[in-house]
């Protein structure tokens, strides 16, 4: 890497309730305003107070795709953090702590211990979180940043609490800053500045905002980690943006409300995690049968069952594939990162509108609760909106987008004008009238029906009509999926190893590939985003040339590996898997590739390809 390159990871460790979020946010804003890139991951527990949290904030002057491999600076908010993590700190790293309460242990050579006598520095403030502000000042000084940036952000962060609070914080920060300048080893090379300020968001914000720009008018949710951030964003912004938000009594209500609003013509979506998604599955099948477009997001966490609510996993792929009984058409997409998620929501809405069917999106805790910098110019905030064949006004008024069928020309047309909601067409797509349009009345039924929407059980359970309707639905889907972009191989066309991943592993695999390249191992990477439709032919073609295929996924059973095989017949030569709740770090994948190449990986099950499972050294 070039000498001007800057890549630094700050860890903040403490207990829930110690206010880790605030210094985290302040540091994040400080860096992105400077135009630096950010990738942050918060390893925490499912409790509200106590326990242990480690927030890793990685900043760099080049785009980041993972939260990195190590800590360069550790801020300990309690003794527990010191005890757990001091041993992970290498030569040249910093350890900042409140020396009134915390004692350091054995350190590796060259670790800079930075004790802060907080009581002294804050005139014996009894405010427990003041240690965080002092430390912030010290960190800025260590990094060689000007104090003014921090001052401004403290003003913004604490402004609404009044001038006294701001002053108290600025003073504390300054004391920390000055103490550090006076007593600690400081980072010598200056921290670069990016070409322009960046913004910062969590993946859940990206999902919500992706919905808003794509025209979501109805959002429903029942709180469930790690998806709740989408609800929080929507609730906070809905009134200003004209989005109706409902918290349902349960996920059954949420999914069914979403379909109700969608049926009326709104773009509607909802988000949950696996357990709530289980409760939504029946409704998703209904949307398939009624041909109602709506989006259901499953933010995966470590399962099974309640599992580990604050930990990540890519464990719900087969749940999504098996969501609801019978055969029906639906999209399944697993975006690569927050920005991709932002764009994928709109893309998925267009597809579901055109194909008149539900869409499922799979993200995970890593994307959804991660905090990332984003370049606002990279965000397409005015995406193309294609609602497919939608009838919002009677024929005489068609083209009048505000039309509602309520015109004298058309009368009230109490009787249907020959409109067939589920008409057989060449494309399989039947133009969809939304309720309220005169002369287009029909019943949308979860029972099998004929072109007119009439239950096939209502006359005679006609096997020929049944077959034709199944084929009509399949046909429309085939017609629309031509629009979906096929996956592409990243890296050199010929490589020793081809890494295949799906969804959120995109970034970490890219970083691992770069590290491997630096180690002289040539790898390329096939990241899969579209689960359904799956581009079997394209994937088969790409992988036909692969010397050694290794599949990387964040689950136990190799859910993607088995799905890939079901769609292409391709069995990988080996696997890299992780299912301990923590996401991959780049070096886990590097180690896996090296071990596979060295032939040292074994399989837990005889007759199966070898599986490399990295140790989680960190956060233990």
């Amino acid at each position: 890497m070039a000498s001007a390159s800057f890549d630094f990871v700050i860890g903040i460790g403490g207990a829930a309730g110690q206010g880790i979020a605030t210094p985290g946010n302040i540091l994040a804003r400080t860096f992105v305003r400077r135009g630096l890139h950010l990738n942050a991951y918060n390893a925490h527990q499912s409790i509200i107070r106590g326990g242990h949290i480690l927030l890793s904030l990685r900043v760099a002057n080049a785009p980041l795709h993972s939260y990195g491999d190590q800590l360069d600076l550790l801020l300990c908010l309690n003794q527990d953090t010191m005890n757990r993590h001091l041993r992970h700190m290498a030569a040249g790293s910093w350890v900042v702590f409140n020396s009134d309460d915390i004692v350091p242990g054995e350190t590796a050579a060259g670790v800079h211990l930075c004790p802060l006598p907080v009581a002294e520095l804050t005139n014996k403030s009894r405010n427990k979180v003041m240690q965080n502000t002092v430390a912030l000042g010290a960190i800025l000084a260590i990094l060689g940043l000007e104090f003014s940036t921090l001052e401004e952000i403290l003003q913004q962060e604490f402004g609404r609490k009044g001038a006294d609070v701001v002053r108290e914080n600025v003073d504390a920060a300054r004391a920390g800053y000055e103490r550090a300048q006076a007593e600690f080893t400081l980072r010598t090379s200056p921290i670069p500045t990016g070409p322009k300020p960046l913004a910062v968001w969590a993946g859940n914000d990206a999902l919500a905002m992706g919905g808003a720009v794509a025209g979501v008018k109805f959002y429903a949710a029942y709180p469930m980690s790690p998806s709740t951030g989408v609800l929080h964003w929507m609730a906070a912004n809905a009134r200003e943006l004209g989005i109706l938000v409902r918290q349902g009594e349960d996920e059954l209500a949420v999914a069914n409300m979403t379909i109700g609003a969608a049926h009326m013509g709104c773009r509607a979506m909802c988000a949950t995690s696996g357990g709530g998604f289980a409760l939504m599955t029946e409704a998703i099948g209904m949307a398939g049968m009624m041909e109602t477009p709506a989006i259901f997001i499953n933010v995966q966490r470590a399962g099974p069952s309640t599992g580990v609510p604050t930990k990540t996993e890519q464990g719900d792929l087969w749940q999504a594939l098996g969501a609801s009984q019978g055969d029906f058409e639906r999209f399944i997409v697993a975006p690569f990162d927050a920005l991709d998620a932002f764009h994928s929501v709109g893309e998925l809405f267009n597809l579901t509108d055109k194909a008149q069917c539900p869409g499922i999106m799979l993200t995970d805790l890593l994307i959804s609760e991660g905090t990332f910098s984003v370049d606002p110019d990279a965000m397409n905030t005015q995406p193309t909106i294609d609602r497919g064949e939608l009838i919002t006004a009677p024929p005489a008024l068609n083209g009048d987008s505000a039309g509602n069928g309520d015109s004298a020309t058309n009368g009230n047309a109490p009787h249907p004008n020959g409109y067939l909601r589920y008409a057989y067409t060449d494309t399989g797509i039947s133009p969809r009238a939304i309720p309220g349009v005169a002369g287009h009345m029909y019943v949308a039924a979860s029972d099998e029906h004929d072109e007119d929407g009439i239950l096939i059980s209502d006359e005679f359970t006609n096997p020929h009509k049944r077959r034709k309707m199944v084929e009509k639905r399949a046909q429309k889907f085939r017609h629309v999926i031509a629009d979906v972009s096929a996956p592409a191989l990243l890296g050199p066309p010929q490589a020793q190893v081809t890494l295949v991943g799906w969804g959120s592993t995109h970034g970490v695999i890219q970083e691992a590939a770069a590290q491997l390249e630096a180690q002289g191992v040539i790898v390329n990477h096939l990241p899969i985003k579209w689960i359904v439709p799956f581009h079997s032919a394209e994937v088969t073609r790409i992988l036909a040339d692969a010397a050694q295929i290794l599949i990387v996924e964040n689950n136990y059973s190799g859910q993607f590996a088995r799905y890939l095989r079901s769609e292409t017949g391709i069995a990988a030569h080996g696997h890299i898997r992780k299912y301990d709740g923590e996401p991959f770090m780049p070096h886990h994948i590097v180690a896996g590739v090296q071990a596979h190449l060295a032939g040292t990986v074994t399989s837990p099950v005889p007759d199966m390809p070898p599986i490399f499972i990295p140790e989680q050294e960190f956060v233990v």
Partner: protein
Amino acid sequence: MTVPTKPAAPVESAPPDGMIPLDAKDFKGKVNPDWCPGCGDFGVLNCVQRASAELGLQPHNILNVSGIGCSSNFPGYFNAYGMHTLHGRSLAVATGAKMGNHQMTVLVTGGDGDGYGIGGNHFTHTARRNIDLTYIVMNNQIYGLTTGQLSPTSREGARTKSSPFGSVETPINPILMSIMAGATFVARGFSGDGKHLIDLIKQAILHKGFAHIDVFSPCVTFNHDNDYPFFRQRVKRLEDEEHDVHDWKAACEKAMVWDDTIYTGVFFRQDDPPALEDKEPVLEDDTPLAHRPLGLNDDQIDKLIRRMM
């Protein structure tokens, strides 16, 4: 734009401007009901069709949502927009639909199993939200479509295919449940008393808020306990009694009577609490969400991005 509106005042037979008045047969659906001859649901269907005509409603401005069951086949027989959804989920779908287009009249129809059994949670929560829906439950004290099992309204001792030796469970009283959950219009009808039922349905549709009508609608095939004679001998209209519909205690007391007398009529109503749509700032604008422009304007986007920096 003008949007189809629900009659705001109790005008009995004036359709909205420019609309021809319709009569009950204009509300006949595309197919004839396949209910058993004599099924109570026929009576309910007739009454809904008559009430709709008398209120001057227009088929395309009505959405009729149901679940699954004999009674939930209703939308197929009623000329309006319909959604024949999942067993137990009609109120949830209807809530989303009403939010999506709050200018439509949303009528929810279903059975006792659908609404009080599997759908019980949506029932109480929809009631407390006081969303402007009319919910008609064809209560036959049995699971009809699945050929006769216990329903949550089956009496203790009821012998059904799932309780051949008599049920040991106490039934639910849906009138009490909806009053206590917060419904602002709670009534009971009898499919055998059409004139009365039409009147209840009209009141319920005109009521701004969650209106619940539990209708005795006998299943002539699977429930021989609660047949027409059983109800004919017992039902008494509350309108013929001294009953104060604003008095919850009197309402509950009357709802608990289940002997030689069983009351029908409006048990309870409250007109003050605003309906959910009227409390939702996003719906202040009359244009239904479904007809509003999609996406965000530059100002909105700038503001959002500024907050992220």
